[in-house]
């Protein structure tokens, strides 16, 4: 409550103190532009992080739940081996469902490559069994050993080989997004510090006069800090709105959410709420950076 009160008092400010700092200089304009540009970039970094996070989760989850068993055997043994594999699967804990694909299913799968007239029943095509896991999944190594013993022609493919790098890549992309946000925050702080230092140096005379007529350090610093903080917040608000608008009108590549990062660099649902954090965060960075700069330059003054 006290903090809220202080924040409100800060926002309203002291119009008389504000008048003592000469009207907007070049540095204040720079601050508005910098924080707008940084907020714009932050929206994209945020979208990147959140989208790749979503993707990593989905790939991790969905793919972990499905696997395929491929049975290659001479034509006369294939039915026996399929049945044997299904029996093994029935008694494997963690397997929710196992289903051998019919000739018809397989024809549909192969059609895109070989056309509709493929004589599936006459070709030595391996039989496929679709396995759906439940709960925490099954023990892939154990299942492999059992299949090896009982169904010589069976190979279990749990997609782990190509799933892991994808999930890892998505995770790295997410970390990269957060790193970008951190860097953007740091760069914003650094640039606002430079702008504030320039403003303080340009107004050395104003500060000296205020100090000589009995203004306290906090009063003097406050006049500068408020100006920079408000401009940074306004700039960041503008940048965030622009960033969000750009995300909204960005073409989605026709695909739905499934197609992932490349086509769907967007935010969904509650995630839009995260963008609301950007302007206050920029204001906080500006506040801290300007206050530190103002205190430093006041210390040098008697």
């Amino acid at each position, binding site marked *: 409550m006290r903090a809220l009160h202080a924040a409100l008092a800060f926002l309203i400010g002291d119009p008389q103190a504000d008048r*003592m700092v*000469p009207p907007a200089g070049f540095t204040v304009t720079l601050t508005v532009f910098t924080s707008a540009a940084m907020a714009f970039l932050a929206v994209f970094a945020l979208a990147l992080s959140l989208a790749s996070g979503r993707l990593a989760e989905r790939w991790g989850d969905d793919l972990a739940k499905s696997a395929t068993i491929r049975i290659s055997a001479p034509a006369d043994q294939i039915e026996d081996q399929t049945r044997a594999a299904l029996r093994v699967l029935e008694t494997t804990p963690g397997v929710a469902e196992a289903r051998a694909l019919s000739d018809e299913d397989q024809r549909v799968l192969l059609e895109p490559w070989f056309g509709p007239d493929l004589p599936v029943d006459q070709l030595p095509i391996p039989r496929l069994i679709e396995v759906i896991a439940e709960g925490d999944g099954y023990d892939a190594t154990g299942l492999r050993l059992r299949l090896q013993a009982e169904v010589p022609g069976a190979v279990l493919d749990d997609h782990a080989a190509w799933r892991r790098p994808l999930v890892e890549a998505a995770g790295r992309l997410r970390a990269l997004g957060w790193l970008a946000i951190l860097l953007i925050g740091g760069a914003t702080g650094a640039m606002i510090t430079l702008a504030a230092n320039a403003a303080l140096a340009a107004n050395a005379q104003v500060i000296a006069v*205020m*100090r*000589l007529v009995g*203004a306290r*350090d906090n009063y003097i610093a406050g006049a500068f800090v408020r100006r920079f903080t408000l401009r940074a917040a306004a700039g960041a608000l503008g940048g965030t709105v622009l960033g969000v608008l750009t995300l909204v009108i960005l073409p989605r590549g026709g695909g739905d959410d499934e197609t992932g990062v490349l086509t769907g660099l967007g935010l969904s649902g509650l995630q839009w709420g995260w963008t609301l954090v950007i302007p206050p965060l920029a204001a906080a960075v500006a506040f801290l950076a300007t206050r530190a700069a103002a205190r430093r330059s006041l210390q040098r003054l*008697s």
Partner: protein
Amino acid sequence: MIELENVAYSYGYAGGELLTEISLKLAPGSFHFLTGPSGAGKTTLLKLLYGALVPTAGHLRLWGQDIRAMSRDDIAILRRKVGVVHQDCRFLDHLPVAENVALPLTVSHQGGPDQAQNLSDLLGWVGLTARADALPPELSGGERQRAALARAVIMSPEIVLADEPTGNIDWEMSQRLLHLLVELNRMGKTIMIATHDLQLIRAAKSQVQARVLRISNRRVQLAGADL
């Protein structure tokens, strides 16, 4: 109210101490001149008196409080009790004269409608009513000095320190300024004026009882009656 005891000051370069062994008391209601050649340290001594510099040796007490024990905020508050007319009267150039004169009130949160009468009286007293809305860079040298004096006294300080208040203005204007300072002294204020204008000192002596201090050979001495 202001007491110096063996105070020394050095800007910290090879020349050594600029001022040394200075013991001095400013009694309430007294009128002092501070004189000495250019570069003797008049401005430096005044800066010590309003806490812009801290003695490198000795003790300086303001209203009983040692300057070294004072925080930056204490010094800011002190400046509200000591009116200073600086040698290079500096203003906020983007604000009109009236607002500049009222600055000490504003920064101590005492500015307000009830002070408006006070402000316009003060501007009338220094003869700047017509220039109240001008910006400081538009003022003449004498007008600047008078605006600076008005700013120095708006808080009704107990002490007024003036550094070369008649530095670059003509004799008639100097007389007018001196008259204002004498008037303040008659109201009970302690006045200290740094100047090397001996004519001004003579003129003052015919109006008030003034002590003349001279900085010579790094020390402050009471000047003889020959002035």
